[in-house]
């Protein structure tokens, strides 16, 4: 008798599982890879909830004007794309804006045309002058500060933060000079990143470096979810872009300049990916071969938006107040699919994507496949009812048998 009872139980459990796996409703969630396209790469989206940026200029002295302009260009970009000053740690080793040699006081330009002042009237430099040291930089990354360090000098990121680390300065094979006196090695950076990973201080990290032999700086990195890119290969120099005759110094480096060519057209809603950014790198213009290291990075670069690192996450706050959506006014409801802001540059992307057929990774087609919500919605209550009936039936039968 008992054997019969247990048999019934086992069979019912097996039935239950078969039912669960078969139903349309559940399969969407249990086998995401098959149907990923249906939900438009939901699982390939970054899972971050906040963005941080660490922007470091390591070189001092007036003639290194261009390095400060590099950093401030990126600073302007991330600020424009919505990362607030409280989430940006800016390290500048010297003060060129108010340097007595600067003909245009309180300004830093990255172009000889001098149309855009990068310094602006709203800037917060967190570490400046002598404070820019290897010790402070590693303390910042790893969060091992002295107790009195103010909040503005700390990287308060968590395991849901996407962190952009941008560095520029003078470097060589496997090292980057800080202020002409000390240097950070590629091993130091790799270990600092590992400590960040162990302490859950990032979700994903983009390491970008504009210096000579840049690729050697990220060659030792071994922590997961790190994407790295640099201006040149090991053994190559990186070069400055152009000179402002009135300032008397070069105002920007080539690699950063051509990055900005793309970044300047990125808006917060832009769907441009990092793969697109990397595809724009032209060796004949940059004069060195930029390096990209993505072996530690899980996601497909074709699905990583530029704004995942250079822009801020828009927080959506739910309010108690609702909006009535009546059937009659269906046409008034904005169609999100049509109205997504597609700037002109997005069209450019597609053009470029079409022209470049020699992609490493298949390009993303921005298509929304409609999910049949009706079907799935119908299935789920039926499935629930069925399973309840099944279980109650089994219990009823087992009682009768007893």
């Amino acid at each position, binding site marked *: 008798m008992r054997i019969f009872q247990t048999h019934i139980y086992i069979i019912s459990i097996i039935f239950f599982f078969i039912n669960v796996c078969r139903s349309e409703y559940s399969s969407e969630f249990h086998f995401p890879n098959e149907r990923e396209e249906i939900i438009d790469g939901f699982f390939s989206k970054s899972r971050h909830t906040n963005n941080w940026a660490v922007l470091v200029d390591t070189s*001092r*002295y007036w003639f290194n004007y261009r390095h400060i302009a590099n950093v401030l260009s990126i600073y302007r970009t991330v600020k424009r794309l919505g990362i607030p000053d409280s989430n940006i740690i800016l390290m500048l*080793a010297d*003060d060129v*804006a*108010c340097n007595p040699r600067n003909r245009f*006081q*309180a*300004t830093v330009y990255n172009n000889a045309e001098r149309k855009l002042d990068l*310094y*602006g*009237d*709203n*800037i*917060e*430099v*967190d570490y*400046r*002058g*002598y*404070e820019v040291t290897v010790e402070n930089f590693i303390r910042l990354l790893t969060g091992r500060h*002295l107790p*009195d*360090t*103010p*909040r*503005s*000098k700390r990287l308060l990121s968590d395991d849901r933060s996407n962190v952009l680390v941008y560095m520029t300065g003078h470097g060589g094979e496997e090292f980057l000079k800080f*202020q*002409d*006196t000390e240097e950070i090695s590629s091993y130091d950076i790799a270990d600092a990143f590992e400590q960040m990973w162990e302490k859950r201080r990032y979700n994903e990290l983009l390491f970008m470096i504009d210096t000579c032999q840049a690729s050697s700086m990220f060659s030792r990195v071994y922590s997961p979810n790190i994407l790295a890119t640099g201006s040149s290969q090991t053994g190559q120099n990186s070069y400055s872009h152009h000179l402002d005759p009135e300032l008397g110094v070069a105002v920007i480096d080539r690699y950063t300049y051509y990055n900005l060519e793309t970044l300047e057209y990125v808006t917060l809603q832009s769907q441009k990916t990092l793969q697109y950014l990397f595809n724009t790198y032209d060796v004949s213009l940059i004069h060195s071969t930029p390096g990209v290291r993505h072996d530690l990075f899980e996601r497909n670069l074709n699905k990583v938006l530029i704004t995942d690192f250079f822009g801020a996450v828009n927080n959506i706050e739910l309010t108690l107040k609702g909006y009535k959506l009546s059937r009659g006014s269906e046409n008034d409801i904005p169609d999100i699919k049509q109205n997504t802001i597609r700037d002109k540059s997005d069209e450019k992307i597609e053009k470029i994507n079409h022209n470049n057929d020699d992609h490493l990774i298949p390009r993303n087609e921005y298509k929304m496949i409609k999910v049949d919500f009706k079907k799935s919605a119908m299935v789920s209550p039926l499935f629930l009812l069925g399973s309840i009936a099944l279980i109650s039936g089994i219990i009823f039968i087992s009682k009768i048998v007893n």
Partner: protein
Amino acid sequence: MFKKKIISISSFIFAYFTIFSIINVVYGENVYSDSFSEELTMKNLSETEILAVFNFTQTMDLKEDNKITSYYQLFPRAIGQIVEKYHVKEFHITFTRGSWNSYQWGLNTLPVPVGVEFYAYFDANYDTNENWSGLANAISGVFCASVNYIDRSKSAKPNYSFKPSGSYNEEEKIEMRYGSLSHEGVCTENLTPWIKLLPCQSKMGIAGLLNNYKLFDTNYYSMMAHLIPVCIDSECKHKQLQLTQIISTVFDNKRISKNGNKSWSTESLFGKKISSYCPVSTNSKIKIELNDSDGENNYRLIQSPSRFESSTKDTKYAVYDLISKRYDNLNIGVNIINEKNIQPIQKNIGLEVYRSQSGFAEEYGGFVVTMKNNNIDKDLSITYFDIIPWFVNIYFNSFKIQNTKVKDYQNDQYVNEFYYEPAIEHVNPTILEMKMIIPRDSTTTIEFDFDKKHLLYADYPPDCARGFDVGSAVVTVHNITLGEGYLYPTEDFIRIYTEPIVIILPAPDFSMPYNVITYSCTIIALFFGSMYNAYTRRYIPLVVEKEEKEKGKNETQKIPPPKDSISATEKEEKDKDK
């Protein structure tokens, strides 16, 4: 029964809380209030240079026990929280770019040294050293400056030079710390957080004129924040916190004006027009100080002012009240008609102070301080205060204090107090404080010599070839009141700062360690190689050789013996032969 009890208790609690909260709301607003006032004063400092002083004052009522409330209305929370955490009673911080040209501009009524000056008073019931370093770090975060570099080795506790500007009970015990950084630059990144402390920021009111491009393109720029406690009642039981933010700039009209015109206005100086007043301000004024004697023939005001106020004997203020809204989107300034007759408005107390460096080369040096009293009818009582960093070794026996008029100057009659604290390496600087009297129409000089120290490798800054900074010395002139225009008009002293000095210290060749490593490695390699060679060599006796020769006749040699050993043995043989 039980339920009833619960209901009655809960209703009682509810009633209690509602009554309490109503009382709180009604009285809370009356008891604690913040206020804000803004003012801009402009005047001709010399023929072509214009002084503009912005003054923003915020107050916040304190609780009965003189602690900070949690009701922040206008007062910046960033400051309030720091004050609470580090038990700060009052603090003063100034950022200055360019030095005050006292030859042409007269006395600086808002005296500051070049770079950053920072001093604070703390509640003496707590550990002041700890609070001082904590406050320096916190302030460095608020103002984006490297104030955190003012540590114990750069700070001092002056005895006679500084008095607290705030008002205190007899019960309150306070302790002071002073420090300065003459090398610290001032730029937009310091102005940005400074403006953010204002209730309207730079969006409305007088602060709207703060244009960083214009402000940093001036001959002199000084920005400060002073926090002091002020008594409300006569017994000083109730207090307010008063935060005064000041920007004092000297514009060079020669450079700014396009056609060499000496007229000036808010638009020509700041590039902006006035955009109304800050709505939360109780007082919003622009004042132009004018020479009374000049008359209307020499200048004409662009807008007619609300009223005139007399300031001193010869000068008057044209006051523009912005709260009347009459001057919105208008340009306020002075059209100068008779360019040759501009009378600069300056103040002077007839004291000149210089500090210079003597000696040459990188081994020894000295300081010479000259204080010249130009007054014919007045002796001046002053205090000289100097913080000299520990990297110069001062010889106390080399001190010379002389006066051109008095021969026996170095006695108690003239040098009233002499405080000297020798430096301890890496721990504290040399502190020098002298209270003295400078007789009328005479010059006092202080001279002393020092040695320049050799520092440790890590003590050198990245740009040590530039030299090491010694901050400004402070000369406090006692028993003088300037009145209006001074930061706190009731104070009876004036400060004069000397210019900072850069000392060139002997800097090592920083590639030296690498040279040492390569040299020593070469020597070790040579030494080790020869020694190893000598120790491991086998000297083969003659007997063996004979055997080998015999063997050689019989067999083909498989392994040739080492050449050196052969030659050595051969030599021995030859020696023996001889």
